[in-house]
């Protein structure tokens, strides 16, 4: 189909899995984090915000390099994992998943942060006074009033993870079915002068990314949130 080989399909499936898991994990982490960031101004908040935004400015190789060091067999986390009978995280799907979570974090946190800041606290306080507990407030007040922010956060996270290359190459290498995602595969195709395959996959990514951003900006206009 579409002239894609089994290696291509494997990479597509892997990439999709990576993007999906990253998005789910990030929404879970970013929601409380963004809520905290948007609920006041303090030095701690500014510091956390800066750390979260680091992947926006650092070369992906820097991030990948440090993660390789920490998560690899001789790194602190990698060694601890090995000591308790697990494997280290370098050159594994779990490793690039963790890397993606860190790498795409600003794309989940910032839209949510902005949506929560625009929401303010009044409606939530009102819901508290009316007897709604934490989860109740989230589901019946915060979520419906900031759903645009959630859609933007999820879409951007997904799309940005799709475009990840440097970090994965540093940390994950190019293991088929484990770490060889689309961007890496395209690189491999191009290296092997296999331009036709590279072209097909590149075009797919291009179209998909455009559609994603189109959706995000339409939502942005509708909800007037998260200018990115």
């Amino acid at each position, binding site marked *: 189909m579409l002239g894609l080989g089994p290696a291509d399909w494997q990479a597509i499936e892997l990439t999709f899995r990576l993007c999906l898991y990253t998005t789910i994990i990030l929404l879970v982490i970013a929601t409380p984090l963004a809520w905290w960031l948007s609920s006041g101004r303090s030095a701690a908040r500014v510091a956390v915000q800066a750390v979260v935004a680091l992947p926006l400015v650092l070369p992906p190789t820097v991030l990948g390099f440090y993660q390789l060091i920490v998560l690899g067999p001789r790194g602190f986390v990698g060694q601890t994992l090995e000591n308790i009978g697990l494997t280290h995280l370098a050159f594994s799907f779990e490793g690039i998943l963790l890397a993606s979570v860190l790498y795409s974090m600003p794309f989940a946190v910032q839209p949510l942060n902005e949506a929560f800041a625009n929401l303010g606290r*009044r*409606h939530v*306080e*009102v*819901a*508290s*006074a*009316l*007897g*709604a*507990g934490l989860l*109740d*407030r989230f589901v*019946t*007040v915060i979520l*419906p*009033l900031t759903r645009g922010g959630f859609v933007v956060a999820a879409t951007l996270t997904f799309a940005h993870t799709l475009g990840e290359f440097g970090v994965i190459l540093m940390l994950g290498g190019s293991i088929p079915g484990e770490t060889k995602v689309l961007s890496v595969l395209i690189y491999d195709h191009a290296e092997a002068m296999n331009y036709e395959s590279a072209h097909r996959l590149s075009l797919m990514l291009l179209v998909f990314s455009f559609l994603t951003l189109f959706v995000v900006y339409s939502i942005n206009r509708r909800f007037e949130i998260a200018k990115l």
Partner: protein
Amino acid sequence: MTLRVRARWRREAFELDVDIALPLGGVTALFGRSGCGKTSLLRVIAGLERVRDAEVVLGDRIWQQGRHFVPLYRRRIGLVFQEHSLLPHLSVRDNLLYGYRRTPEAERRLHLDEVTAMLGIVDLFDRSIDRLSGGQRQRVSLGRALLTSPQLLLLDEPLAALDTQTKREIMPFLSRLAGEAGVPVILISHAPDEVERLADRVVFLRDGRVECVETLREALARPDSPLFDEEGPVSVLEGDLEGLADNGLHPFVTAAARLWLVGASGRRPGVARLRILARDVALALDAPGRVSILNQLAVTVERVEPESGGRVTVVCRLGDGQVLLAQITAWSARTLALVPGAAVFALVKSVALMD
């Protein structure tokens, strides 16, 4: 029921430092200028701010003490804010029922029909929130808070964002609230007329501290009351407004006196408050005949305040204990030899029915 609040809360340049036990019942006003700590105190009472070492106890319910802290959603407090705070994604009906549905059945004392009838919002059920006027929104907010059958109603400047006309529309609902719903009310306000109209008791706040707690009557019996503004001292009389009499006027009856009001048509008969400026009250030693002033009340001089700017304020009491202040020239006071205990007649030039 008593509300005990002890809190010390420092925030940048501001410090709230209160330790009070408030007897609740009817409407208690927290009065003070903006920045005096009214809203901070309200947030501590509601549990919207968790201030370290604060103590908040309502009756036998300990809301905050030491490490014990009951979150707002378990306190059953009705909150109404100054600005529009209806949930924008819900209809009027769903806003009203949001808290009702979350109130355990056994604790529901107030129900949709009676609350909406009391607030006159039955017709608004299916409207969307943004098609309500400011006054309607505040009434729906009030109804929504009442439908949780709260143990305490906290109103944070509920009238401040409304125009005079709308205020007039809401005031009667607010004044009936505490009585008809049987919920003690704490009203935050910086407007003397709101306090005079609605409050039974006043907590005066200044620079984060409680200056004093007085009944409204006590608060209005001292000429230096913070409630008085550039109009000077004011008295508030409570009584019953009756229907139109043969002479085209409305009688306003207290236990000790009857006043005649003009222009009170359109007001429902019943308990009402009159606002009388001290400068509109003259004093006479004998009952004057043949004068145009209709309202002549027999009062007893309680004391004459020290002179200021050539005038003195005379604190008089009606037979039923209500206070009426008269502002006259110091010279008149000397000429009439007004001393405590003297029986005189207060001639009231003008009164305003508070709505």
